């Protein structure tokens, strides 16, 4: 441990406070008893799909197309997910199948 116990607790509290501001802010700004402004309501409907797109890209941000495996394991595994999901339409199967293919690829092939 680099820090003392008290300092460690200080860092934990600081990280928690920062995180909780980001989580509670919208709910504090637009409390239950107030009507949600139209524009915010629009964002509430438009943002989720866009944010899931962001999360996908965010998860893949470390992939290097130029070096190493050129992002091929990721590309192939996502391909498998797309096909599985199209054919079977089963969330767990698609996630499990894609993950297993990815693990096999990075452990055995690349």
């Amino acid at each position, binding site marked *: *441990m*680099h*820090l003392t116990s008290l*300092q*460690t607790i200080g*860092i*934990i*509290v*600081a*990280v*928690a*406070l*920062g*995180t*909780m501001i*980001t*989580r*509670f*802010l*919208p*709910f504090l700004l*637009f409390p*239950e008893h107030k009507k949600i402004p139209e524009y915010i*309501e*629009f*964002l*509430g*409907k*438009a*943002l*989720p*799909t*866009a*944010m*899931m*797109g*962001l*999360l*996908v*890209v*965010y*998860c893949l*941000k*470390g992939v290097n197309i130029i070096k190493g495996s050129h992002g091929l394991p*990721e590309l192939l595994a*996502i391909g498998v*997910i*797309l096909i599985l*999901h199209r054919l079977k339409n089963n*969330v*767990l199967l*698609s*996630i*499990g199948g*894609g*993950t297993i293919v*990815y*693990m096999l690829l*990075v*452990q055995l092939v690349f």
Partner: protein
Amino acid sequence: MKKALKEAFPHTIPILTGFLFLGMAYGVLMKTKGYGPVWSVLMSAVAFCGSMQFVAIALLTTVFQPLQAFLLSIMVNARHIFYGISMLSKYRGLGKMRYFLIYVLCDETFSITYGVEPPEGVERRYFYFAISLLNYLYWVFGTLIGGIAGNFITFNTEGLDFVLTALFVVLFLEQWKKKENRVMGVVGIMCSILSLLIFGADQMVIPAMILIVLCLSGGRKKLCI
């Protein structure tokens, strides 16, 4: 409540896998830096913020800088603001329970509570609560195992963390099924890639969020939702 847990559990299985694995990795990593399970579990239970906890390891191994920790976690976690905006109407009228739901609103919980409709016969708030609680416990429990026994894992887990990427891909596809969502999906992906190319992997999230809001607001009249 029991029924809600039973109905919610299958939806959380990918997160069980991902969180146990990553939580354990976190517990092990903290241990190698001299912070035993008490500290890693405390961080996971109180701050519960995944990637930021990994970032915070750097803050625990240098001089004491609480203000920097505070500001950094706002920036790293800024995306939560958008989850909150998306959940404003779904999390209305849930009583005191909503404080817990908001406290633990992470990427994975957001994607499921937003994407999955509560099944019939299960009260909405219990369903959300069950998903949020399970995901929270997976992360804390994973951290605990990692902190105590992380070094005993022998099977090759390389690539297991892809389960969360797969989860987001599939939940994205589920949104894609609704035709009116597709434009938003494309906007999200394109803005994120653009931001990744311009600002790099470590700085991409906030610029991507700004770009997304600008694009969506610009096309508001055409989106007709």
